[in-house]
């Protein structure tokens, strides 16, 4: 009896972890793609996720959109803002010392967080219920409709992304720029345009994560991006920063570990788990699970 209830709890936490983890994965993809292409940890990325959640909030409340139009709307808004940030804040610093760009990214992050507070007030808002909550029981496990939506949407987005990166012209150009920027230029690739495109894609995935979290937790606020942003960064490092499948696996893995820690140990250790993983990875396998020893760009 004791053993079977433990197994059951394990699988229950696994389900919770996978749905939370696919959110981390969506955000982690933006970190990893931007890092892959310009070797920048875009600290403002978590705030783009927040912005996406708000865009989804306004789309569903003011414009009365249903889930899918709101998802598309918020992805478009976030990708536009992401491209603008790259254009206005990062591109002028191309070729500047890395630390200058890193500090700028932190500045952009603070601007979005506190600018967001001025625009939409610091008060948390209740995300509208876009799906009637249904819970499904099978074999003693509980899955709710939000978890299913999260899983389906994030899997679909990751599938589309994988297809774009591997099989389309722009995806090949992204890989080329990421591997060797000057060689990519010699192929006639407009590198600035590819960088813009990368920010657009990464931001739109973060926005999708923002809406999904809004649906899951029902509550959004201007600082909601900080913690998931950091966690997704850990997920990207865990998978191997710059490696796209790594971000997906790293995100899901982190979500599962967190769920197991809060289920079996204590939920107060949940946040600590992510950072312990970060430290362990940096100590023993800095290239991450899927990382090759990527040669540093000169």
């Amino acid at each position: 009896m004791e053993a079977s209830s433990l197994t059951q709890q394990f699988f229950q936490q696994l389900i919770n972890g996978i749905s939370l983890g696919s959110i981390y994965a969506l955000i982690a993809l933006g970190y990893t793609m931007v890092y892959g292409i310009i070797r920048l940890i875009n600290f403002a990325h978590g705030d783009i996720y927040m912005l996406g959640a708000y865009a989804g909030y306004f789309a569903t409340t003011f414009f009365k959109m249903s889930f899918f139009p709101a998802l598309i709307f918020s992805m478009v808004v976030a990708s536009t803002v992401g491209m603008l940030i790259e254009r206005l804040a990062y591109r002028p610093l191309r070729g500047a010392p890395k630390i200058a760009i890193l500090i700028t990214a932190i500045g952009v992050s603070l601007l979005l967080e506190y600018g967001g507070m001025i625009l939409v007030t610091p008060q948390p808002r209740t995300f509208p219920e876009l799906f009637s909550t249904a819970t499904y029981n099978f074999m003693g496990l509980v899955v709710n409709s939000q978890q299913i939506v999260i899983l389906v949407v994030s899997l679909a987005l990751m599938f589309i992304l994988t297809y774009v990166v591997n099989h389309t012209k722009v995806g090949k150009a992204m890989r080329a720029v990421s591997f060797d920027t000057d060689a990519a230029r010699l192929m006639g690739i407009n590198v600035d345009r590819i960088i813009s495109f990368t920010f657009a894609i990464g931001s739109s995935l973060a926005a999708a994560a923002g809406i999904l979290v809004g649906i899951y937790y029902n509550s959004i606020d201007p600082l909601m991006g900080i913690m998931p942003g950091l966690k997704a960064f850990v997920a990207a490092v865990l998978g191997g920063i710059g490696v796209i499948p790594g971000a997906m696996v790293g995100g899901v893995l982190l979500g599962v570990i967190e769920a197991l820690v809060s289920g079996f140990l204590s939920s107060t250790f949940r946040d600590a788990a992510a950072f312990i993983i970060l430290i362990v990875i940096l100590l023993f396998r800095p290239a991450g699970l899927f990382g090759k020893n990527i040669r540093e760009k000169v």
Partner: protein
Amino acid sequence: MLKVENINVYYGAIHALKGISVEVKEGEIVTLIGANGAGKSTILRTISGLLRTKTGNILFEGNSVATMAPEEIVKKGISQVPEGRRIFANMTVEENLELGAYIRSDKPGIRKDIDKVFERFPRLGERRKQIAGTLSGGEQQMLAIGRGLMSQPRLLLLDEPSMGLAPLLVKEIFSIIKEINASGTTILLVEQNANMALSIAHQAYVLETGRITLSGSAKELMESEEVRKAYLGG
């Protein structure tokens, strides 16, 4: 076809090219020879738009390309096979060739040209789905040349294509260069292997620490006392 006029190029405080002028006539093979560090690659990188000249001009078919972005220069018809090959080692042979055709959108034409590359380099055809990083040095150089041809350039810049290859492969590469030229592509060839380069070129320039010290027909240079001593081993 190409006129490089009095260019001065710097890396920060390093004055790498000091008033270089080079001319390439349509249909020719022109070679730039010189020791390591003379500035050969810098010339090619400047022509391709990766570096900027402070003075002078670069004219391609009468139009200045000196301030154009690299991708615009490729569209004008200048393609470069860079030093050290710089293939995309994490992608397949075929993907490398597709990237070479990035500026084009005529899918059937691109297909046909990929097949042409495989005809020219049968070993690449056998390995079309293989990751490029797993190819041998010679195969990688062939891939780099094939990739450079995929944009259908009228002028092909080759930076030390024989570097690091066994003598037999060097011969093969040079005969391929001659073939490419014979099929209508003008070539600017940078080499440290002066002997081989002069043997296939029409015109030649000798570069020393950022300056052109000698120029003339390849035949003249091959016979010149100075060149024989410095670059041809006596």
